[in-house]
């Protein structure tokens, strides 16, 4: 076993480090919808211009085609420099893009993939519905074929960035007669189509990106269907396996920086006794050490996962473990942040500002819900890894 990088990998790391230092966005991320769109797409365009867009994408689709080790290096450097998380561009780069690559037609790919890479389009995910959360396959948003169009009626919910998105990966029910996994269709929905009504939902963090989407006789051309009519479940699953494979590496790696920032903050910030810095408090010090250790182990798990993926070439259920550890840890760190902040917890802050621990705390609750709840991850681990009965 070794943790050594080859000469080429070291050279690559230096190149990434230099490029990020010179090109990273310097302004604080705005918190209004239009500002977020502008900011995230702008940063994506910068990466495109620098030749760093879509590092995980194969080169044949315009991506960087980086190896898993190179991706890890990129994410570690990215996190070390305190760069913003991949936010409004996440669905395009990590869900929609990879799905289109594996299942879309030549025409669909040619149109959409470059737009995602160049920072010209924001994508959102129309999966969850009021009655179809963890049980996604019970979705009911109806689509009826009328000529060469699908006519959509229904509702999606928890759709991050629907208010600023250009396109949506939309799961609809085209046939309600078979089992719930049959009769689902995956379509590209242009968010400017008539009949779409996007209503923002304010989050506990005060975020402006959460939405519900209503569809009233929305007509989507059949040419926007990805895969075939009724085969949408398998199309959607190809997205989820990518998501659980490498897409969360960035988040996992970023936690290490967040913990180090919290330790620095605890050295400066007055502790619970009102006299000494927070880190002088035994309980806080121990909890800081515990999360430091846990984050180190998450990093080691991420490394093992990458070695594993390089050997087997398939993202197995192991990704669920990483997602689960990440989510639990994110919340633990956030709760510790609140205890260090002390009475300043009364003041609203944003996670995008330096030491925005209050905002981070409220944001952290989303991490064990979105992208598959922690309960679902535990089911996957129990059933698919440990072989426990369903």
């Amino acid at each position, binding site marked *: 076993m070794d943790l050594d990088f080859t000469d080429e990998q070291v050279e690559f790391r230096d190149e990434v480090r230099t490029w990020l230092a010179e090109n990273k966005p310097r302004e604080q991320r705005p918190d209004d919808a239009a500002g977020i769109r502008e900011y995230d797409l702008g940063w994506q365009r910068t990466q495109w211009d620098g030749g760093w867009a879509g590092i995980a994408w194969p080169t044949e689709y315009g991506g960087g085609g980086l190896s898993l080790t190179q991706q890890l290096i990129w994410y570690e450097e990215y996190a070390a420099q305190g760069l913003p998380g991949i936010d409004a561009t996440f669905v395009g780069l990590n869900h929609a893009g990879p799905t289109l690559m594996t299942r879309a037609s030549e025409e669909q790919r040619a149109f959409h993939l470059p737009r995602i890479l160049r920072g010209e389009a924001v994508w959102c995910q129309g999966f969850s519905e009021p009655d179809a959360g963890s049980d996604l396959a019970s979705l009911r948003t109806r689509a009826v074929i009328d000529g060469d169009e699908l006519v959509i009626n229904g509702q999606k919910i928890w759709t991050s960035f629907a208010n600023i998105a250009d396109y949506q990966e939309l799961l609809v029910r085209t046939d309600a007669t078979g089992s719930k996994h049959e009769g689902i269709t995956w379509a590209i929905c242009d968010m400017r189509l008539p009949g779409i009504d996007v209503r923002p939902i304010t989050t506990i963090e005060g975020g402006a990106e959460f939405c519900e989407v209503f569809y009233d006789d929305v007509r989507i051309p059949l040419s926007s269907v990805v895969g075939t009519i009724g085969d949408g479940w398998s199309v959607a699953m190809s997205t989820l396996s990518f998501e659980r494979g490498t897409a969360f590496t960035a988040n996992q790696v970023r936690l290490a920086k967040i913990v180090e920032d919290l330790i620095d903050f605890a050295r400066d910030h007055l502790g619970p006794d009102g006299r000494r810095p927070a880190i002088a408090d035994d309980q806080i010090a121990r909890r800081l050490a515990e999360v*430091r250790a846990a984050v180190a182990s998450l990093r*080691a798990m991420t490394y093992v996962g990458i070695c*594993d993926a390089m050997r087997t070439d398939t993202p197995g259920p192991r990704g669920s*473990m990483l997602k689960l550890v990440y989510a639990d840890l994110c919340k633990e760190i956030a709760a510790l942040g609140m205890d260090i902040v002390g009475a300043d917890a009364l003041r609203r802050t944003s996670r995008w500002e330096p030491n925005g621990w209050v905002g981070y705390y409220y944001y952290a609750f989303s991490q064990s819900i979105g992208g598959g709840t922690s309960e679902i991850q535990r089911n996957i681990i129990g059933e698919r890894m440990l072989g426990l009965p369903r």
Partner: protein
Amino acid sequence: MDLLPSQDQLDLIAAASDFLESRLPIEGIRQRADDPSAVDPDAWREGAELGLLTLGLDEEYGGSGRLLDDEALLFATLAEHLAPGPYLASTLGARVAAQCGDLPLATAIGEGSTLVGLAELRGDGCIGPDSIKGTFDLIDHAGAAYLLVASRQGTALVRATQFPDIGDLPSADPGSRLATATVDAATVSHWLPAETDPLWLRGTVLAAAGLAGLANALTTMSTEHAKLRVQFGRPIGVHQAIKHACADMAVAADASRSQMLFAAVCVQSGREDAAFQAYAAKAVATKAAIGNGAATIQVHGGMGYTYEHNAHLYLKRAHLLAHLFGEPAEVLAELLDQGAPQ
């Protein structure tokens, strides 16, 4: 970069497992419960012949010259089988003797003819290159000619005769033996300074490896029980209360294994953040092994509360390892004192 065991390492684990299952079955712990020594001397020597004590020792001292990740995998395997006997102290003891140039002693320890027990300083005292002082917990000292006394500054071998008044104590772990001894100025026979070889970190990683092995074995034990035990007409593993407990155990075991291997490589290669990684490994693995032990007893219900079941043996071994190479709170304090990892 590679953190997966090689075929060579998998073979090593398989060979060690075969030996432990046939010669040192867990049932032996209960059978020897009233014996002064936790391990059968013949089985100990056979294990030594197999190379269990000298895997990481240089070949010129009769060892296999393997790296710390091999040793870590071996110690995880030893713990998975609850192997009794002073493996940790004797492995490190052979290393101290070898690094001090004492070939006869290194060989005798490696062959299993000379045993080294572990002495852990409890409370105030002093561990130095010439002498040691204080009250020590002695672990598996029965039949040991030497005791290994480790500190962050260096590691000593002290002759057992230097501990005149040894008082046996009841050991919470039936698979180990415990005693206490107070010495004023016991003479150190071999001293290995940390600058020459960071033995404290090696010990920390191997303790973490043992804890990770326990966490893993406990996960398997609980999972198998959850598949077989039927209540309300179905295996209890269908219920999320049990299924999720097993999933959490699996995650804790994986985290501790990944981190201890990561740390082993860092300590082996002398990486700048080696201490950080080793302390993190010990902290994570301690929590995993004790947490999984507690959860396993709960998953097994009444059976888990009995002496006859193995669950408590694992939990008790976990508590033993947790108190070696630094108290848990001390390990956390040391970890927080380190700079950010590399």
